[in-house]
């Protein structure tokens, strides 16, 4: 493969090698583990790893190949997550048109990210849509249960579109002198440490978990998993700071806050699912559930990361 075609520099190359190195490690680990201890039930871990292969390949390819493809791919992720959420929420019949308007907000938001119009990008959902969508709900004239619809629909845009679209806007950030990895480096960084944060919290929890954090919301989350995960993520973020324009101290702080934000996004979606009474929002990704189950933490980490970096370095 001709690497210059992708405009790869050593920073991007090392994170890609790291991602696929980890996947190979996990695959070999579960294979050998399964051979040594055939009674261990590794099916879910193996299915998850397989899905990780697919997701990482698609993501790395989209992030590197062409910025246009990345915007479309991330935008589609938002759309699919939104659709998944509306499919399990059981909204009223009269909310169909407002829902249609919510879907229309997706291409607009990603277009604003694509052209890099920061002022419009940052207000389109929290200001424009938060005024427009409740109006679209009330002009249907059906007032029974209207408070719920007026609250759910704009919030769904925050969860599935606004936060996630910050991943796309990273690619539109201007170039900084002396910072080679660029927007693609930042994108790979935030996605990588967010997903690793989920994996670390899961692993620490499985190994040492005793005291539950939020038993009524997410019974599998423990203090040991949470603290172990946050610390590991912070350290990993520190060593991967070559993908960002941040100094060592800044990288530690940003990674720590991203790890905390990841936990918050995760439990918020867990709480939504618990209220509706489903385990997963869908079955699109084998072993992981639906799309929303996978990107729940990104909905909070992407904007937190973006605004910290934007404040510190741009």
């Amino acid at each position, binding site marked *: 493969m001709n690497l210059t075609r992708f405009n790869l520099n050593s920073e991007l190359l090392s994170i890609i090698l790291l991602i696929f190195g980890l996947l190979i490690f996990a695959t070999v680990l579960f294979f050998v583990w399964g051979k040594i201890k055939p009674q261990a039930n590794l099916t879910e871990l193996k299915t998850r790893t397989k899905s990780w292969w697919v997701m990482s390949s698609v993501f790395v390819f989209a992030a590197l190949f062409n910025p246009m493809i990345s915007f479309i791919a991330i935008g*589609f992720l938002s759309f699919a997550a939104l*659709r998944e959420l509306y*499919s399990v929420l059981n909204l009223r*019949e009269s909310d*169909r048109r407002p829902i*249609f308007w919510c*879907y229309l907000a997706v291409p607009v938001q990603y277009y604003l990210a694509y052209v890099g119009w920061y002022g419009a990008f940052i207000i389109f959902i929290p200001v424009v849509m938060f005024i427009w969508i409740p109006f679209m709900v009330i002009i249907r004239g059906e007032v029974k249960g209207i408070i719920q619809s007026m609250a759910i629909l704009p919030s769904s845009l925050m969860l599935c579109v606004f936060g996630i679209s910050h991943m796309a806007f990273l690619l539109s950030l201007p170039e900084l002198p002396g910072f080679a990895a660029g927007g693609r480096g930042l994108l790979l960084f935030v996605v990588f440490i967010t997903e690793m944060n989920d994996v670390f919290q899961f692993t620490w929890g499985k190994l040492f978990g005793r005291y539950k954090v939020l038993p009524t919301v997410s019974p599998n989350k423990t203090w040991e998993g949470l603290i172990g995960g946050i610390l590991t993520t912070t350290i990993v973020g520190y060593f991967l700071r070559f993908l960002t324009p941040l100094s060592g101290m800044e990288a530690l702080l940003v990674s720590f806050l991203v790890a905390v934000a990841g936990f918050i996004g995760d439990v918020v979606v867990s709480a939504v699912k618990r209220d509706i009474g*489903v*385990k997963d929002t869908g*079955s699109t990704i084998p072993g992981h559930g639906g799309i929303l189950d996978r990107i729940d933490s990104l909905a909070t980490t992407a904007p937190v990361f973006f605004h910290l970096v934007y404040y510190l370095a741009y």
Partner: protein
Amino acid sequence: MIRNTFLAFLYSLVMRSFLVLIVGVKYRNREVLKKEKQFIIVANHNSHVDTMALLSALPSSRIRHVHPVAAADYFGSNPIRAFITKLLVNTILIPRSRPVDGEGPDPVQMMFDQLEKGESLILFPEGSRGEPGKLQKFKKGIALLLEKYPHIPFIPVYMSNMGKVLPKGDGVLVPFNSTVIFGEPQLANSCDLESIVAQVEHSVLSLRKDEHGLSKER
């Protein structure tokens, strides 16, 4: 030949991509369609999307030979509309009821003719699009077909959420994750009309139970 290529392009490529990527349709057990050469698809009916979803599920070489059965008074209300539904949706348009005094075309005979030619049918035995999530009583037309042609299998299909995507009386299509579940092909196991209707109804309903069973298990 040209017509087949056209229908295959329209449904297997354009419509299927649109349904799967944008609308969020998921197919389950679609492989059963490859097992049989001639069949009658029997499905619940909540939306115009139903027909599109079923045609898009067919193996592309078969589309030309599968005809959704539709009401002539609605889809054939004017000649242009009738022409378009026949050309684009490959339908056969039948009157809603049999003629009382032998005058006019007999809908059942029209379906017999198609089966006689070796063609397959898509039937919505509820008669018309019902309320989302509710199954109306099946009409007995399907039983008349299966009684006369006991060697032709029927394929039960249950579709969920289509009534949310595009309900009756609404012109705006709104994407929602929806499922099309195909059951195993079956032959009518009696020659009594009432019990054939009951068999067909039960086979469609049992797919709905499948769907709920799966969502609970997850």
